[in-house]
């Protein structure tokens, strides 16, 4: 195993807690695999007997909609792992993984994975720490989203002003929970804008004149002798003024 692979393993969330010694042990058990663009790394529904550490190239995680069309649910970059969930919960692949370009991955078999778990406490701990970190990180964001959801439901949008949206993180694929938060943030901004637009539309005054009544009242006033005389006098006055 090359030092490159060790270095890459150390950069993964999954293995970053492992000692050099433990990393060596993991790398020694793995097989480096190469996939061409469009090639499947794993298929949805397959029995799970290994997992992958991506060393180079991007993948998409895909599932199908009701019509059987592909839906991309995620993108995976070098340093990330795919397929390890099935090894723990012992269930078939919940999604497929397809190479978006030339991909290099270290495949680690289920046996290696379980062996690691039973024989290397440091590896087990490292893996657990990795999970725990991810979970904590996600939990913080999920708590935020819950908090924001409640505020939004109550029409309290003050958090939009008090929170720095993580725009720097949105668009990068490294942290899905942060993306969720960012997407939520911009969604609430749009909801607020739409609500305000609606409010303004609702609060636009509606003016209406009863034209029948207008005509009737006008005729009541102008129908008098007084008015006829006044109108004639006013006309004469305006003509006098116009002449200077």
């Amino acid at each position, binding site marked *: 195993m090359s030092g490159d692979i060790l270095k890459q393993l150390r950069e993964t969330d999954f293995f970053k807690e492992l000692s050099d010694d433990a990393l060596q042990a993991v790398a020694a058990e793995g097989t480096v695999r190469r996939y061409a663009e469009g090639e499947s790394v794993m298929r949805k529904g397959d029995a799970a007997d290994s997992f992958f550490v991506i060393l180079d190239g991007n993948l998409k995680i895909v599932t199908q909609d009701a019509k059987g069309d592909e839906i991309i649910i995620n993108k995976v970059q070098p340093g990330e792992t795919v397929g390890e969930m099935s090894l723990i919960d012992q269930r078939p692949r919940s999604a497929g993984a397809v190479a978006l370009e030339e991909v290099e991955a270290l495949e680690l078999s289920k046996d290696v994975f379980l062996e690691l778990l039973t024989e290397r406490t440091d590896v087990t701990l490292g893996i657990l720490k990795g999970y725990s970190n991810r979970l904590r990180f996600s939990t913080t964001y999920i708590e935020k989203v819950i908090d924001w959801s409640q505020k939004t439901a109550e029409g309290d949008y003050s958090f939009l002003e008090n929170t720095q949206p993580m725009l720097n993180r949105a668009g990068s694929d490294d942290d899905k929970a942060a993306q969720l938060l960012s997407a939520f943030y911009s969604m609430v901004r749009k909801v607020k804008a739409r609500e305000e637009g609606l409010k303004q539309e609702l609060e636009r005054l509606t003016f209406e004149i009863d034209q029948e009544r207008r005509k009737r009242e006008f005729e009541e*006033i102008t129908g008098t002798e007084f008015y006829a005389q006044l109108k004639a006098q006013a006309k004469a006055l305006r003509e006098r003024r116009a002449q200077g």
Partner: protein
Amino acid sequence: MKGKIVSIHSFRGGTGKSNVTANLAAQVAMTGKRVGVVDTDIQSPGIHVLFGLDENKMGKTMNDFLHGKATIREIGFSVGDHPGEGEGRAKLVGSNLFLFPSSIKGGEISQILREGIDFNLLNEGLQTTITEFDLDYLFIDTHPGLNEETLLSIATSDVLIIILRPDNQDLQGTSVTVDIARSLDVPNLFLLVNKALPKYDFSVIKKDIEAQFEATVTGVLPLSFDMAENASKDLFSLRYPDHEWSKSLRGVVDFVLAAK
């Protein structure tokens, strides 16, 4: 022709007619014009209150003049010489602004109408006022509604400013006044919205009301606590020139000055 008659009218009382008239007259006077104000709206607070004048000191009225009991000289009260108390009013010192109280006691005007004051007599009175005081503008604070006296002032006006609140009751009443003003060939017919709730979009109010009447809305003035609280203590637009109400009111001045 020298000296324009500018009538300020509203369908209902309490619309802000007296406040607008006093502030508008003051603002026009501040541009250096010679301005007179005829107060015919005897409802309190009369316009003299807005100028900070004690009605006991005002003496003779337009009614005395129309009855031949006083000369117009005796009636005109120089606000420029005797501005009332207040920082805003003080700015009127030296301006050519004259107040012509029409009637302090209620009933005098109807008495005049009963006695048959006619259009030509009223008009002569106003023309004499303009000539004697060499006025550029003579503002008339009229009665609300459309009684005969109001019709007389509309008929003699060069400029008619109808003030309305942005609600349907005022729009209905205003629609009749607009038709009357057109029937009497008033050369400059302007609308002015007062007491608009700030939560509305004023440009939309302006557009909608202009569409209803096919007449110019010269301004939309906000309903304001500051106004309600300070209106009688001082001349609001002089005291608080940067207030939204004052800024919009000054916009109306431009229409008055530009009227042909």
